[in-house]
């Protein structure tokens, strides 16, 4: 039952003939006409190190998490907003849109179906951006080690900066993880976005290996 990837292209993404108001027919190819397909590039920091350090301090101090719960671990992030943990103290906030977020937390198991969305969300964030894998499932599949539809190893598909172990890790562990991430950022070592751009073909190959119905451009701006 192996099928050609083109088999999975949705009808709305198929090239189609349309007739303009002037009666002239032409072809619309949605994947080409509606999506930008420029590849990502490696971005260098500011020319002056002191400026870059200053930026890194600000980046560390302003972690905006994309409000995207991929698995059951998302439930452990909610308490961070409560008075008990109050992650806002540490400059951590949640943003509902990928454009404004700079931290993607993969919160638990990631089915291939969600992986596709996670990739899209990650690529729509702007450089520099960070990925934190939450819980055993992101590390080695965890209890889903033999599942037919979850990935077992997140860093094959997205440039993970930090894993937080546990099944599930407690909110305290999350806070600790974020503090560790801040250290990485301040040290200028959280360059996942650049790693992603550098190893773009490798990541894409891995992604496409598990996502059979690849119906989007290689990079989602």
């Amino acid at each position, binding site marked *: 039952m192996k099928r050609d990837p083109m088999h999975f292209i949705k009808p*709305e993404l198929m090239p*189609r003939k*349309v*007739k*303009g*108001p*002037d009666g*002239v027919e*032409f072809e*619309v190819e*949605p994947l080409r*006409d*509606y*999506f*930008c397909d*420029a590849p990502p590039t490696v971005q260098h920091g500011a020319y002056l190190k002191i400026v870059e350090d200053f930026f890194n301090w600000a980046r560390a101090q302003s972690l905006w998490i994309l409000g*995207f719960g991929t698995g059951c671990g998302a439930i452990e992030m909610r308490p961070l907003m409560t008075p008990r943990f109050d992650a806002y103290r540490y400059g951590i906030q949640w943003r509902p*849109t*990928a*454009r404004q977020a700079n931290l993607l937390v993969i919160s638990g198991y990631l089915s291939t179906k969600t992986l596709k*969305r*996670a990739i*899209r*969300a990650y690529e*729509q964030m702007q450089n520099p951006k960070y990925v934190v894998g939450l819980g055993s499932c992101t590390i080695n599949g965890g209890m889903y080690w033999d599942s037919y539809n979850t990935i077992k190893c997140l860093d094959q598909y997205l440039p993970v900066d930090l894993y937080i172990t546990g099944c599930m890790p407690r909110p305290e562990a999350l806070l600790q993880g974020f503090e560790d991430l801040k250290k990485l950022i301040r040290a200028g070592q959280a360059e996942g976005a650049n790693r992603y751009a550098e190893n773009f073909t490798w990541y894409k190959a891995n992604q496409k290996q598990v996502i059979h119905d690849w119906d*989007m451009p290689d990079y*989602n*701006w």
Partner: protein
Amino acid sequence: MSGVDGLLLSPLLILATGLGAAFLLGLLHPRQSGVAYGLTLVALAWMAWIPARWLWAFVLQGAAPVEILTAGTPPPFAINLRFGLPEAALTLLVNLTGLLSAIHLKDVLLNQGRRAMAVLLVAVMALGGIILTRDMFNLFVFLELAVISTAGLVLLSDTHRPGLALGAGFKYLVVSQFISVFLLVGIIFAYHATGTLNIDGMAEAGLANVAALAFFLMFIAVVSELKPFPANGWALDIYESAPPAFSALFSAATGAAVLYAADKLLLIGGDAWLPMATAIGIVTFIAANLLALPQTHDRRLLGYSSVAQTGLVLMVLGQRDILGEATPFIAFGLLVSHAVAKAGLYWLSGLVQERRLTDWAALGRRPLLVFAFATFMAMLTGLPPFPGFYAKWELVHHLAGADRLVLLALVLLGALIEAGYLFRWFGYLLKREAPGGETAPCTPHKLVPVLAALAAGWALAWLWGDLFGRVNLLLALPLLFALAFLLLDWLPAWIKNTLAIAGLVAYFIMTWGEYDPMRLIFAIIFLIGGALTLLASYHAHGRRIGFYPAAMLMYAGMVMLIQATSAFEFFAAWELLTVGSYFLILRGKASEPHALSYILFSLGGAFLILAGFAIAAAAVPRLDLAATGALQLDLASLAQVAAPAAPWVFLLLAIGFMTKTAAIGVHIWLPGAHAEAETDVSPMVSGILLKAGLYGLMVLLLAMGKQQLHGVELTHALLWVAALTALLGNLMAVFQEDAKRLLAYSSIGQMGYAMFGLALMNHLGWLMALVFVINHYIYKSMLFLAVGGVAKRTGTREMYRMGGLIRLMPLSFIAVLIGIIALSGVPPLSGFGGRWIFYNAIMDSETRLPIVVLFLAGPVAFLYLFRLIYTIFLGQLKDELRRVKEAPFWIVLPQMIYVALLLVFALVPGLALRQVDAYLDRFFPDGGLRWEGGQITSQYGYWDPIAIMIVVGVIFTTLFLWLLFVNRRAQMVKQFNIVFSAERPYRPETTHFAWNFFAPYRKALGFLTQPLATNFWGAVTDLLHTAGDLGRRLYDGNGQTYAFHLLAFVIIAFFIGMGA
């Protein structure tokens, strides 16, 4: 007899020729129908020539009327005929109609042979006899002759639909005999009472007093021949079933002749019988028009219309006590309009094969015939420059002068209903698809009568203008310029466009010194603005038949409007611009119903204005109407209208003007009319035409100022109307899906603002109104052009079908962007000036509450403006629009000029306003502005447009450069590269949030946009139609019923007339 008369032929020859030719025809061999036809034509031509020659003599050579005595004895003992100016005119009319009808009837006559021709000749001769004779019994004889020959003609012509005409003719005969009995009995009684059969003798003997019943019988018999309501079913069947040319004769000639007979009888009856004639006339006028309203059969509709027109003339005859010397001018004006137009329309109907009104679409492709139809329609509805217009003006003024206001209202109501079905018909003719695409065969003998009527119509228009004595509209330069385009319509559009632009500009250069600063603003908008808008018309290819005459007619009307000094000129100009714009609007693809509602509201408004002027003229003390007979009312003397009439005059005029500015309640015509109009017409009718109504209001308010009615300050009421107009116009704009409708509703709102400014009645309020006038002209023209250009390219006006066009149509986008910023009043563009003056103006105002409504209206504008620009230019580009190009150059060019104008006006509003500000000091001495350098100061606040522009510009530019610098490497993405909750959009259609854009707002305030006004006017129209339909049940096609109608009519008339 004078020397001149010696050269003239005896009028008796008219009768003799008719009879003789008919007799001769009998001698011919039945097969020689060609010869017979020739003989008939010659005879008719000869019969027409004699009165024509006489008419010439009467008018230009000063001939005296002749009395013709038969048998050589004076009246009591022998029949006498009179031949004066009216007789000459009428016989000419009758005989010409007969001649042209004979030409038109060629097929039928040749087919039917000499008998039919003889009967036709006899009929025409008999009608001539009715006109000429002064003897009562002789009149009876001619009437009988006319009736019998009419019936004979109908019966003879019973060819194409056997049975129908037969029935009609039979019914006609039956009912006619009833009438004859009345007449004969009346004559016997009258002779018994007075001992004479001579009409003048009876009059001298005071028959009406001596033997009222005798007179009643004679009178009612003659009136019944006029087919008064309801005793007219029998006649209508004739109209419907006879050949059209014959119906023309029946309608035009018979009507004219019998009306003259009725006039003679009224001479006997004296003043006492005038009210009855009036009553019968007006009831017939209204009822027949109502009955015509639901008609779908063309000839029957024309029949009803004929009856109505005859009724109107009868009513005029009945008003001779107050009309005095003006009676012939009015009566003939109406009569010839009716006769020429109706005959023309009947002849025209010979060119249409099917009988439904919609089948007239077959004529729609023939400009000449359309022009003929339009001419006839204008004649019937009394539009300038035709005789009916002058007659209506005089009539209404006399009625108002004698305080017969109910009658006045009824006349105008009937005229409006008549306009309703005629213009609806015209709409069918132009806009409906011809059934099967067939056009009727256009043989010369069918065409000649139509063209003759057309020529006669325009000749009469000139004649009546000349007779009117003061202003001959056909001599007005702007109107002539517009009419010249009728002759030039064969030229390609771009040449005509150049001519039109040159004409407008040239006329402005010729006249600009004549205007005061306020009028100058209007003149600039009408003339220069019109020329600017016409630039967009260069985009049209081909010849664009009909566009330029209509457009230039509208501009001519507007120019004449601001040049008008007297009420008559003003009103004529008003009607001209209305008609011109109607033809313009009608050109839109789906504009038929909207154009109709436009013209009806406009005519309704115009009639209110007419009534207002008439009442004002009556109430201005110094005018002695009876002495002058001329009803010249200067616009300035509106100020002198005396107290009880003044507020009513104000009210009538204000409502009349407000129908043009589309104040709430009478606004329903606007959205459709403006939205459905062509791309370059929308800016004309919205940006320019709407200002005519404002101009009218300005003239009115300047002259009359504040008026009180039952303790209500009318300007205060106007404030409320204006505020509600602004609010509801804006609100309704919010919920439109159609971009042009949105703009149209927005215009309603904007006009509300301008009206509000005027109604404030203070210096700054007026200045604000003028700012709105200027601004609205610029940005609404620009927006309509931009949206029209987009609609042209995308093939739709529905905004949700567009989207994302900014990259494809950047110039249009800029125009719309500038337009909406200006319209919304956001600094630094010119709309802010209007808002600033508004706030200063209301500081001076006593009234507060209406301002609340206006405050609410303000931000609502943002809603529809954002929607306009967003749903068209931003958001998601659709599949099929991906290759759309920028709008055509000639549509974009004026937009860019408007952008420049807006910026200039934003920077230096003083350029346009300073003069007006100073000028307004004359009327409102307090509260003017101070202009020092860039700064404008009122007594409350200040602003400096240049400083604002610089400050905003500097901040904006700085930030923009900064953003460009820090974002210099931004990746340009495509339209689906949006964060879509980690998904991707499905299709542009489902991603473009545009349809029902303000759904929550509808939930909250949608209840305010219930179509109350639309429902109200819909109910009024339904009511009229239902009334007409009910009336139709009277006419069941049964001869007995018709006879009964006649009896009932006579009895009712008897009780009402004699009982009183």
